[in-house]
């Protein structure tokens, strides 16, 4: 806003014609708004195209030039459900929900011990948590595979749950800590003056303040676990496979039929897109380990 009016004002002082500044003052913002909308739609269009293609017949989906007007069909979704998406969907739900609950159970007390009642070496512990996210996963996959294989836990949903919990825990600790730090100290002091026990203070004073933060942290964990592919593809097959591995397996067995695979991709992506739209304000906070609010 400020930038465009500024440009308008400068044009006013240097513009030769009298009516030009007034025009550019009005058209400048309109042009920028139009450009923003075009870019927004442009970035979104591939996703929209995926959803549209999912409702096409294969003939409409693979046509040159592309078909924009078509009569929608649910045929592709039927094919996807017939291909046995059910167990994969259930595995994804299970791995996502259980690992998210575990993360919150482990991260909330840890974040408390690193914020409101800081232990010694808080900084070192915090740094240790992010440092685990810096190590490339691929360097750990070989021993993880060997150990999981020896424990007879290949293709077992609990293997993914444990790994997803470890994957999201550092993010959650950092995020939750940044929420705990927002709790006013005076409030805690007042509560302890009134003789409230620590547990009671936590439950009645701290929890209401940080509960939106817990919700945001949960959504971030859901997004990451649902979308995870590397562990899933290497450690599971028919029994414990998740939605991303279903997509791969579906394409491998059915071939690259655009409408079908778009329907499968839409089903795989939809839950996280919806969760992400709700949590979009918190996405950055999650990915930056709470460094940016």
């Amino acid at each position, binding site marked *: 806003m*400020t930038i465009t009016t*500024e440009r308008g004002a400068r044009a006013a002082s240097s513009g030769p014609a009298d009516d030009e500044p007034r025009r550019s003052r009005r058209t400048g913002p309109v042009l920028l708004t139009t450009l*923003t909308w075009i870019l927004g739609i442009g970035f979104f269009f591939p996703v929209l195209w995926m959803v549209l293609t999912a409702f096409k017949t294969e003939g409409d989906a693979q046509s040159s030039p592309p078909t924009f007007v078509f009569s929608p069909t649910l045929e592709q979704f039927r094919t996807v459900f017939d291909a046995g998406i059910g167990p994969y969907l259930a595995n994804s739900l299970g791995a996502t929900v259980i690992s998210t609950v575990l993360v919150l159970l482990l991260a909330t007390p840890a974040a408390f011990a690193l914020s409101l009642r800081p232990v010694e070496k808080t900084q070192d512990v915090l740094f240790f948590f992010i440092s685990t996210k810096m*190590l490339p*996963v691929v360097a750990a*996959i070989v021993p993880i595979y060997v150990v999981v294989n020896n424990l007879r836990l290949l293709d077992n949903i609990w293997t993914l749950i444990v790994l997803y919990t470890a994957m999201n825990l550092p993010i959650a600790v950092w995020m939750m800590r940044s929420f705990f730090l927002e709790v006013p100290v005076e409030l805690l002091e007042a509560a302890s003056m009134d003789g409230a026990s620590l547990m009671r203070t936590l439950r009645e004073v701290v929890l209401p303040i940080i509960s939106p933060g817990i919700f945001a942290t949960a959504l971030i964990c859901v997004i990451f676990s649902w979308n995870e592919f590397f562990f899933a*593809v290497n450690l599971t097959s028919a029994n414990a496979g998740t939605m*991303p591995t279903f*997509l791969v397996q579906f394409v491998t067995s059915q071939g690259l039929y655009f409408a079908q695979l778009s329907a499968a991709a839409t089903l795989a992506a939809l839950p996280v897109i919806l969760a992400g739209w709700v949590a979009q304000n918190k996405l950055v906070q999650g990915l930056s380990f709470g460094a940016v609010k």
Partner: protein
Amino acid sequence: MRRAPLLPALVFTIIVTQIPFLLTIFYSLQSWNLVRPGSQQWVWFDNYVSVFQDSQFRGVALNTVIMTLGSVLIAVVLGLVLALLLNRHFVGRGVVRTLLVTPFLITPVAAALLWKTTLLDPTYGLVNFVLSPFGVGEEAWISDFPLASVMVALIWQWTPFMMLLLLAGLQSMPTDQIEAARMDGAGAWAIFRELTLPHLRRFIELGTVLGAIYLVNTFDAVYMITQGGPGTASANLPFYIYQRAFLGFDIGQSAAMGVVVVVMTIIVATFALRLVFRSFGAAEGSH
């Protein structure tokens, strides 16, 4: 006592994330191929010698650097443009932001599949259709420009994150400074260069470091779009190590590569992360 709430999370993280790395080092000193039972034996540093002599490994390492840095830098620039455009009041701002965020949310495997088929397909792809007025024919992007094709999918997914991060930066900017500069007659470009960019610097640094941390692990896009090919033209280290371990069953070699990757990452990341988190005052902790 004070430590009690911290311990479960700490112990869990140490066990699940640190033990595998110790084992990686252990395996990297052995010759061990899974398809040849009984082949496990100590060879000490032989695996490392062959990793460094492997010209494919060097090529793949270079691909990883190009893929990571190239995608991050382009995503930061695009994200900055979008953040500046969104940092105004206009009709439907919330809707446009939601639209822009979406590529970041879509399951990476689904996104990669989308690019491989409906978007970049030579005959039926949307990209060639959109470019056809500019004289582009049935260009086979994925086989002619494999690395760039993977990067396009990554940039598309990561630009929204950079946009959100930089938008948060722009919104944390004190407005009185800008007002004062405008009063003094500073132009839009001068304000951007002298005030906005310096303020955004730490956000740009943070975006670059975080983007690099996440993107250096890229696997889904390579696996789905090109399978690293042709040859190893578009393979990055995660994909190459995966191939060695799960298609070649060479545990010792792939473990040695893993150790090399970790050492390289630690050198870059320790320095970069300390810098960034210091400038963001993550140390404000002593409450």
